[in-house]
């Protein structure tokens, strides 16, 4: 479909502004002004709304489609959380308000939201304090590693490395590297967990932290986790928990009890805040007692009289990681979700997510290779290795699923599984949907046996078919100018 620039016609407008009501004009010398106007579109509101509505109809989304995109936790986003986040008194508050004298009283509601969210996250994870400031999971990782660096430098520890298993999210090594550490990647064993012998071989006094996802990206809970954290602590290395998969273990296990010192969460995963087409997310970080002094400023504090204030005076703090208090409206939505579901609801969410994943896995194992066929938690990885021998790769299966109105699983991740398809159904899918998906996956497997050539022409029903990515990267047409 056409671009908004093609709808644009000079003289049209999408919003009318009030006329000038002041009797003066600002005189800025010409040298400071742009020489020609910004070529933004000129469109009427009805045309703009129709254009963007048509665009929206070209998206798969959780409200319309089954979206088992592994590691991304595409669960249903309750509507009431959107409604609350749009309450005018939450959405229009200026972030600098509480930094003014007598401004604190303007922001008591929002400060309470932050304080209570931090408290709830502490209990859910078994950590001692939380900051809501990081603006996404990867940003939480960076914040966590910065705190680990500040901790070691305060203790005058000489540290150089961060240990990460090869099944870890790509953000883990990237975050460790930009915070100034070298990465030691540890291979996974046949059971899909970090190889203990390899781990011990690389562990030394120079290791700053061990970054783990638990359950990991294969959906496997590492039963040796306590041993790993004890060993790490003996070397004065801190344990970092990538909370991308916390949604698997709510009320069942807590990173704080497992020996982790630093935890980041992805509120847009476990706590059902919308993914927004790729953000905004929110990546709060929790720590154990020893790391509290290093948390970013500001800290939200509760006074004796029950009111809330901000504290910027923490000499050991890593400093500012976000301009204010994090992605407030995302944090608010997560807190509403926790408030709605409560203890039983959160536990049920994890249990049902794990049930759905195990059910899918057991029904798919006759048709697809399952590289690590143990009990999984909330997600699992199947491989299209069998099908690829006939010429039907994970990518081709994805395109077949798109024709059925199903968003494909995450493909080619984790990198340690060939032809990987990572499936995460989440708890908000019905058995009927799962059975429908199973039926389609089985028929795809049969078709791959009989007519592999057919897949090359897929998808047939999508608005576009296999866009040429090589051409895109070569020509770099990234703006319409």
């Amino acid at each position: 479909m056409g671009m908004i620039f093609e709808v644009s016609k000079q003289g049209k407008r999408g919003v009318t502004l009030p006329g000038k009501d002041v009797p003066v004009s600002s005189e800025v010398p010409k040298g400071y002004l742009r020489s020609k106007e910004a070529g933004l579109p000129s469109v009427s509101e009805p045309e703009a709304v129709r254009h963007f509505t048509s665009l929206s109809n070209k998206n798969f989304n959780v409200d319309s489609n089954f979206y088992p995109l592994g590691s991304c936790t595409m669960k249903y986003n309750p509507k009431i959380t959107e409604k609350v986040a749009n309450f005018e008194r939450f959405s229009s508050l200026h972030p600098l308000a509480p930094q003014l004298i007598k401004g604190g009283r303007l922001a008591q509601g929002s400060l309470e939201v932050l304080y209570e969210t931090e408290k709830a996250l502490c209990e859910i994870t078994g950590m001692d304090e939380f900051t809501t400031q990081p603006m996404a999971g990867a940003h939480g990782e960076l914040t966590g590693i910065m705190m680990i660096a500040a901790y070691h430098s305060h203790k005058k520890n000489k540290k150089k490395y961060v240990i990460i298993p090869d099944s870890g999210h790509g953000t883990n090594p990237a975050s460790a590297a930009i915070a100034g550490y070298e990465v030691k990647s540890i291979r996974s064993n046949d059971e899909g967990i970090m190889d203990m012998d390899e781990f011990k071989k690389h562990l030394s006094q120079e290791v700053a932290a061990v970054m783990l996802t638990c359950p990991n990206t294969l959906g496997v809970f590492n039963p040796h986790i306590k041993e790993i954290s004890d060993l790490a602590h003996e070397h004065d290395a801190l344990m970092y928990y990538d909370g991308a998969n916390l949604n698997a273990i709510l009320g069942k296990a807590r990173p704080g009890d497992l020996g982790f010192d630093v935890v980041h969460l992805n509120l847009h995963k476990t706590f059902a805040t919308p993914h927004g087409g790729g953000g905004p997310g929110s990546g709060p970080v929790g720590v154990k007692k020893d790391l509290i002094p290093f948390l970013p400023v500001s800290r939200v504090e509760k006074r004796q009289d029950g009111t809330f204030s901000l504290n910027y005076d923490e000499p050991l703090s890593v400093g500012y990681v976000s301009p204010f208090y994090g992605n407030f409206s995302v944090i608010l939505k997560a807190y509403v979700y926790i408030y709605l579901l409560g203890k039983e609801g959160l536990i049920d969410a994890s249990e049902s997510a794990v049930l759905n994943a195990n059910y899918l896995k057991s029904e798919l194992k006759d048709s697809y290779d399952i590289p690590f066929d143990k009990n999984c938690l909330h997600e699992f990885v199947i491989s299209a290795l069998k099908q690829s021998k006939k010429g039907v790769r994970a990518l081709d299966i994805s395109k077949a699923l798109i024709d059925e109105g199903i968003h494909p699983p995450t493909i080619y991740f984790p990198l340690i599984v060939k032809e990987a398809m990572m499936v995460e159904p989440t708890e908000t899918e019905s058995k009927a949907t799962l059975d429908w998906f199973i039926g389609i996956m089985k028929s795809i497997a049969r078709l791959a046996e009989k007519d592999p050539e057919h897949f090359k022409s897929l998808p047939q029903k999508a608005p576009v078919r296999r866009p040429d990515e090589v051409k895109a990267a070569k020509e770099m047409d990234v703006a319409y100018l």
Partner: protein
Amino acid sequence: MTYIPLSEKDRKDMLEAIGIKSGKMDDLFKCIPSELRAKSFNIEPGRSELETEKYFRDLSKKNITDLVCFLGGGFYDHYIPAAVDAIVSRPEFYTAYTPYQPEASQGTLQAIYEYQSCICRLTGMDASNASLYDGGTALYEAAMMALRVTGRNKIIMDGGVSPIYRKMLYSYTKNLSIEFVETPPAHGQSDRDEIAKYLDDKTAAIILQNPNFFGAIDDHTDIAEKCHAAGALVIESVYPISLGVLKTPREMNVDIATGEGQSLGIPLSFGGPYLGFMAVKKELIRKMPGRIVGATEDLDGRRSYVLTLQTREQHIRREKATSNICSNEALCALRALVYMCLVGREGFKEIASLCMDKAEYAKQKLEGIKGVEVKRSAPTFNEFIIRLPKDPNVVIGKMIERGITPGFPLGRYYDDLKDYMLIAVTEKRTKREIDVFAAVLEEVLWG
């Protein structure tokens, strides 16, 4: 509340299908050794939607947001057209994820491409990424990019750059061996002599801001020329609304333009989510961090959009990636796009002019008050600083009690500017509100 569509019978049948005969959901977690199970999970019981809505409605009433706002500091109270909210409230946009599968995500992909195009048109730059978290992290990513591109490790920070962003940059880079030098905070324009003192063949980049934190407008063309001669890149953080009229980063020969996109249709929302934008010259496209959407053709020759240059990114390059960033702020970028389209070519000029004229009117009104000094050392856009004859903190406190948030006390970040207050005026402020502001300030000072 629950959002789980499994009946009791479904659960029983599914447990049986996977070989759990006990019918107990908890048996799904046998892979977690018993000594590692949660020691506590003391969360309150769930509530109905009705109770929840009431609780949060009451909580929101503990915020007070009906004051007349002259607070800025990089975050502004601009009008948001209703259609912006309507579009981003479509679940087809907000319940989707990163467009990894182009056939299932042409809506988001084309929207990001259009966003990138609008950011380029506004800044004059050649290429924009799909957005970053906020203006501060965008500036940090720009600095890191300059270090990579030049292979040098010194950065000159202009004194007019937001103190909030400066603090963020220093936090992020504390553990790295980067040399930061800062020119003194100039209430007016960038201090050319100070910059020249620091500029050398180790300098990777200079970081500038326009208008700067104190509201002053500058033309950085001459600084850019000197930096380029020294082999350094020029990074400039800009306020997008001002670009309706102000000279663009491209016209000043800036290499990397960044900024906070909050003013483009994104609610203040107590600090986030916001939108960091970044746009660069053509030769730097491949060094830019973050998601980028490119146009291409599909099997049938149709124009289509994909995430491109993914080989720079963390999910492929891991520790060698250009950045650790995984997401962008797609929904905020969509807000900005819809805003830029609705306000449009004409409207952008008008809003920028309204902001400038109203700010000029406010300056003149405040200048009429005994003891108040309006700094006029440089032209300004919609924000300016005044010197007060009494402690700004006390003045602000009293004005808040009278229903006005008058501005930001600069003493909060600058010891030598304790008498100063930063005032922002947007198109939303009326002449009447400005008149009342001046009258209340006079009364608070001398009444």
